[in-house]
């Protein structure tokens, strides 16, 4: 046998082993928990589960093919955006491209069939005045009748949409992976600005309205503050990596985590840093920060949690050397349940955190 043939065979064998070990990444979903009246909603790759907020007993799971054979064909493929609720209905979009409306009490679909888009729904959905907005990777923002699940209108942005749309009284804001942010009329979906705001790269984070300022981060490594009425940039702040989290605004201060692993505190009016130094977490920060009882609770992508002084950014609890770890990736936003903070790791394990001292409890769901 020739050495070259032997070599090629060896290469093929090693490649075979290598590819067997490292397969193509599949979507898992990273939606955070949602606490509403009477239920806490937890998402995992292929289902969404409601548990009692008091006892953490499982109330229902969707899809549930054991109880409902018709659910057998439903494959969600991951939920990335946090669900929204209104009037006893849960709305969410899934990576399979469908938008669902479930009865919050029973967990059963309310629409005759799920609303189908032509691409994965990666951002969440947003509720406006009797309209549900869902943005899809197909580049279209859909306005859906929340009762029937029928499409009312659509806006074609022409580029993938990964950011959750933001619905306010006067406008719907939708950002694209091409770096454009549109302000649309909530009823007609006609553009309100003379032209979209253009960032240097894709806009992925969920926008936030603070006063008359829209805050949105992007893959250009900048957090943009944009005038909500005109679409003009007021200020921008550059980090060392992308902003892919929803910022938090409290008392005129913007708290924003970045994939560079830092949490920044900036003045809402000017974008100037408030803290002497940004807080440096061990890993990239994708989950939004949350302010509870005077403590800013932050989780990094590897599930390390920290309690910070919102005024200075100093650690109140947690440690950089030996951080408090949830033992899994935390990429979804936290939720507040009473005085506790809820985090879920990717995969759907729920944790309750005491924001005063960082003590945590892993929740075992009761059936």
């Amino acid at each position, binding site marked *: 046998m020739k*050495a*070259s*043939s032997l070599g090629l065979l060896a290469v093929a064998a090693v490649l075979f082993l290598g590819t067997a070990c490292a397969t*193509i990444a*599949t979507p898992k979903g990273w939606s955070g928990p949602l606490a509403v009246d009477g239920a806490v909603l937890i998402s995992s790759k292929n289902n969404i589960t409601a548990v009692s907020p008091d006892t953490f007993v499982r109330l229902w799971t969707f899809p549930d093919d054991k109880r409902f054979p018709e659910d057998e064909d439903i494959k969600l493929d991951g939920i990335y955006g946090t669900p929204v609720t209104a009037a006893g209905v849960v709305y969410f979009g899934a990576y399979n491209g469908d938008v669902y409306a479930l009865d919050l009490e029973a967990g059963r679909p309310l629409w005759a069939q799920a609303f189908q888009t032509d691409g994965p729904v990666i951002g969440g959905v947003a509720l406006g005045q009797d309209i549900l907005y869902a943005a899809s990777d197909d580049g279209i923002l859909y306005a859906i009748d929340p009762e029937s699940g029928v499409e009312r209108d659509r806006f074609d942005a022409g580029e*993938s949409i990964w950011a959750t749309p933001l619905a306010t009284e006067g406008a719907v804001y939708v950002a694209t992976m091409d770096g454009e942010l549109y302000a649309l009329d909530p009823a007609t979906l006609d553009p309100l600005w003379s032209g979209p705001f253009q960032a240097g790269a894709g806009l992925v984070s969920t926008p936030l309205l603070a006063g008359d300022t829209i805050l949105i981060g992007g*893959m*250009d490594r900048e957090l943009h503050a944009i005038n909500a009425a005109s679409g003009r940039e007021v200020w921008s702040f550059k980090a*060392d990596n992308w902003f892919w989290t929803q910022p938090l605004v409290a008392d005129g201060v913007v708290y924003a985590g970045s994939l560079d692993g830092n949490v920044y505190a900036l003045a809402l009016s000017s974008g100037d840093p408030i803290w002497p130094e940004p807080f440096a977490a061990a890993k990239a920060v994708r989950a939004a920060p949350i302010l509870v009882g005077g403590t800013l609770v932050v989780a990094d992508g590897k599930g390390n949690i920290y309690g910070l002084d919102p005024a200075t950014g100093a650690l109140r609890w947690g440690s950089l050397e030996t951080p408090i770890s949830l033992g899994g990736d935390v990429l979804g936003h936290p939720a507040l349940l009473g005085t506790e903070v809820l985090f879920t790791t990717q995969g759907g394990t729920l944790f309750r955190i005491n924001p005063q001292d960082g003590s945590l409890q892993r929740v075992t769901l009761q059936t």
Partner: protein
Amino acid sequence: MSQHINLPGQIDRAAQIARSGNMPLVVVIGAIIFAIIVAMAIGVNPWDALFINPLINILIFINNICFDNFGIAIILFTLLMRLVTLPLTVRQFQSTKAMQEVQPQMQELQKKYKDPKRRQEETLKLYREAGINPLGCLFPMLIQLPIWFALYRALVIMVGGTPESLLNLSQRIYPWSYLNESLPLEQHFLWLNLGRADATFLLPILVGITTYVTQKLTTASSTAAANPQQQQMTSMMNWMVPLMFTWITLTVPSGLGLYWVVSNIASVGISFLVYGRRISWRQMLLPVPAATVTGRRPRPTKPETTKLPSEPQPVEASIPTPPEPEERSDYERRRRRRRGKRKNR
């Protein structure tokens, strides 16, 4: 085979070339080992820091200058890689060629020495004197192995298409705004989704065909001189390797399959340049190996008249050997005949 004992100076020269040819390789490998040690010392994953991340950033850069067409970027990258590794590839082909040159002597050794140990000693001596590294064909391929692995991992991360992939990608991009502009990368190229395996089977088939052709090019001319057992083995390999690559392509991102197809085509081109021969596609596609692709006539061997020296003699490694005296007359006759034909034209 006394015809190979002709120019002793050439043996020294071949050995010298072989030694000097190894130097850049040794330097590169030494530098890589040093970089790995440094990366580990500062707590960085050397595989990511030295292979995958640079590859990702280079590919994104090429993608940006290719008008955000990632398929074209992969093709351009492949051609660049082939250009960079051209010395290795040429050495691989030359090594293969040199191995082919000593096939007749190898056969004689196998006939003469029945004792496996002695036969092995004599074979190694033959290789040494001919300035041939028996692993010369294997080594360049192994050198490219990390590139293939890194490319595979890079493609999975770059065009995985999932939010998790993009998040992972964000941790690997160098802090240069230009690199972020085109993200996420366009995954579609021709009929392919570069981040997914090709469901149409067209790309795996193309990979199989091009691998088969490449394989045939590197093995064909040697098999004529090989014994039946070797021929059978080579024939089996000629089918098995392409089938394995076809199967692998069914499971990996199409971008990697695209890399293999372009790389194989480039390999055919390089082979053509090195061997300087025309490809007989009719014979190429025949399953039975034969001296198919060479425009040069296979050297006739006459084992019954060949005298193998008891002490192996120096062998000319890379320079084509002239025919034996008794063949020379026949050879000269044919040459004269050809020249005569040309003149008549």
